């Protein structure tokens, strides 16, 4: 049975903070088909277009019929445990910090046999298991197997915690308390066991509706944070930078503007300042300290979430400024991901379509409820995802971009 993860003790200030290490991360280009699947929480293996057999590890030709048509395809997630190995001693620097470590051989229902990371409650050889592809601390795809049925405290398994960014006992910063996402996020994170939730609020002299509801949640602390001010962001990082294990950037600035309007430049500058430059300021202030705390105990720094517009992936002219700003945020987010990688910090992008909020009031449905974004972000943290698509519009755009990005562009402009 998995031992429940207890609230971590306060750090011994005389002890050096454990420095982050990463598991081996070399992968072939083909193997990044698994990375793509793991990033979005799918279970995909190469499947031969000729003979229909699944194959693993990733390769160039089907080992059965030598066909080069080996596309990644969703595969059944079931498997049976063949053997279990409990590793007590290793020369690998990352795994040495996590001994003992359980791995196993699993016969996948779709054919191949794979070496997988094993949850602590997988039972004896012959047990039925559910497989998933996870991104490890190095951001590379690995197999992880858990028992088919839920067991108590399943999510507290130390190996599973390394593959995810569970908010339990972690401290979270939500950057924009005025965002309609802030309250539902704070509520779901509190329920998921977050130790403390900091909520950044700009211009405290401007009242806002959700303030009382936010303050009513136990463990919430409203803090001054204005992403358009370098000083404000730096000041907050000086206070709580080393107390943030999960940062959720909810900053947005949706304003209608047409490209050729007089004054559109102001709208663009403001949107960029709130979103792109805001993310830049956050990255500069909070990035280094989070990266240095990636192995700081059982609840060390673990994830950075950006809530982005799906229109950042392809410009939607009715939200032209918004689209351009979020496209830039996405690029910056990829950069940030590389910079945070040495700390094992996961950068998660949650792409949402138009939210059911005042700035999308005139947009016809389907729209995304803020609560749905909050649930999806929590799910992404608990499953260790990297790209989350929230709501029908985002999912549709993701699928169509995969199929034909030009069609998405042309249809958005009509």
């Amino acid at each position: 049975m998995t031992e429940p993860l207890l609230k971590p003790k306060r750090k011994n200030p005389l002890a050096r903070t454990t420095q982050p290490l990463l598991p081996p991360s070399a992968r072939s280009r083909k193997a990044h088909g698994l990375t793509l699947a793991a990033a979005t929480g799918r279970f995909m293996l190469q499947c031969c277009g000729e003979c229909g057999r699944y194959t693993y590890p990733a390769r160039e030709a089907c080992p059965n019929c030598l066909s080069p048509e080996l596309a990644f395809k969703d595969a059944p997630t079931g498997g049976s445990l063949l053997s279990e190995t409990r590793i007590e001693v290793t020369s690998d620097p990352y795994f040495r910090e996590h001994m003992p470590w359980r791995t196993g051989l699993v016969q996948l229902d779709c054919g191949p046999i794979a070496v997988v990371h094993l949850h602590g409650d997988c039972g004896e050889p012959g047990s039925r298991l559910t497989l998933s592809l996870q991104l490890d601390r190095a951001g590379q795809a690995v197999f992880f197997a858990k028992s088919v049925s839920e067991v108590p405290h399943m999510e507290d398994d130390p190996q599973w915690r390394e593959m995810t960014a569970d908010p339990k006992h972690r401290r979270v910063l939500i950057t924009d308390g005025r965002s309609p996402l802030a309250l539902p996020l704070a509520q779901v994170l509190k329920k998921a066991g977050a130790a403390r939730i900091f909520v950044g609020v700009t211009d405290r002299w401007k009242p806002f509706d959700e303030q009382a509801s936010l303050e009513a949640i136990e463990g919430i602390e409203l803090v001054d944070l204005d992403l358009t001010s370098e000083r404000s962001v730096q000041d907050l990082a000086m206070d709580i930078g080393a107390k943030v294990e999960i940062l959720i950037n909810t900053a947005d600035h949706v304003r209608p503007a047409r490209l050729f309007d007089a004054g559109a430049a102001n709208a663009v500058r403001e949107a960029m300042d709130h979103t792109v430059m805001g993310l830049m300021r956050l990255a500069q202030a909070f990035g280094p300290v989070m990266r240095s705390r990636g192995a700081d105990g059982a609840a060390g720094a673990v994830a950075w979430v950006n809530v982005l517009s799906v229109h950042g992936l392809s410009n939607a002219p009715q939200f032209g400024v918004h689209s351009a700003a979020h496209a830039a945020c996405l690029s910056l987010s990829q950069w940030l991901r590389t910079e945070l990688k040495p700390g094992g910090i996961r950068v998660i992008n949650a792409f949402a379509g138009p939210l059911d909020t005042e700035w999308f009031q005139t947009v016809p449905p389907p729209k995304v409820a803020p609560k749905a974004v909050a649930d999806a972000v929590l799910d992404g943290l608990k499953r260790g995802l990297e790209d989350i698509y929230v709501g029908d519009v985002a999912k549709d755009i993701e699928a169509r971009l995969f199929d034909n990005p030009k069609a998405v562009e042309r249809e958005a402009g009509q």
Partner: protein
Amino acid sequence: MSDDILGKFAEALASGAVRVVDLTHTLSPDFPVIVMPPELGQSAPFRMERISRYDGGGPAWYWNNLSFGEHTGTHFDAPIHWYTGRDLPLNSVDTLPPADMIAPACVIDCSQQAAGDADFLLTVADVMTWEEQHGRIPARSWVFLRTDWSKKSGAGYANLRADGAHTPGPDTEVMRWLVAERDIIGFGTETIGTDAGQAGHFSPPYPAHHYLHGAGRYGLQCLTNLDQLPPTGAMIVAAPLKIQNGSGSPLRVLALVQERSTG
């Protein structure tokens, strides 16, 4: 004597017979700016980003880049700021006649009324009462409305509610009257604007802006230390930045106050 006015002035400054009062708030990122409905254009708040501080960006020097709207912090409104002043000559801060940058001020103390009523409005009757005590407002004088609002900060200072800001200011008639009947050079307040918080509902809307700028007069807002000024006699130095075609600017506002002789 009259051929050495500035010499006497220098002596008075040196001896403390003339005191210099700073009527300016510190220009900082936290100072509230005017809030417009979010779909309209917004004033950029004051921001400062470092270029270097004796570091890799400049090993021996410290300097910053600044950004702000023309109407941030303690600031000056030029006639071109309002549509009523758009066609006047010399209506922007760069063309402002230098002689207008130095003028006497009448300070009308309404701090008690404002303490009891955030929506307090200055009326012609209030000014008449003040004149009975201190004499008629001289032409080309500043009129400063003292409310002690500058002693508030943050939310209390902006005082925003669901129906907008609630801060004291002048009523419509007093603004028309001060410009037409008293020929004032400008009107100054301690609040975010020269107009009252609810002045958008007046007729015409924003009467201080409407009448002042329509007649080529000026506004000063976010003033502080008005409680250190005498009702009459202070000289105000208010020189906005010389911004090409600028509608206003943050500035340092100084008051020269003659200490009462003890003899």
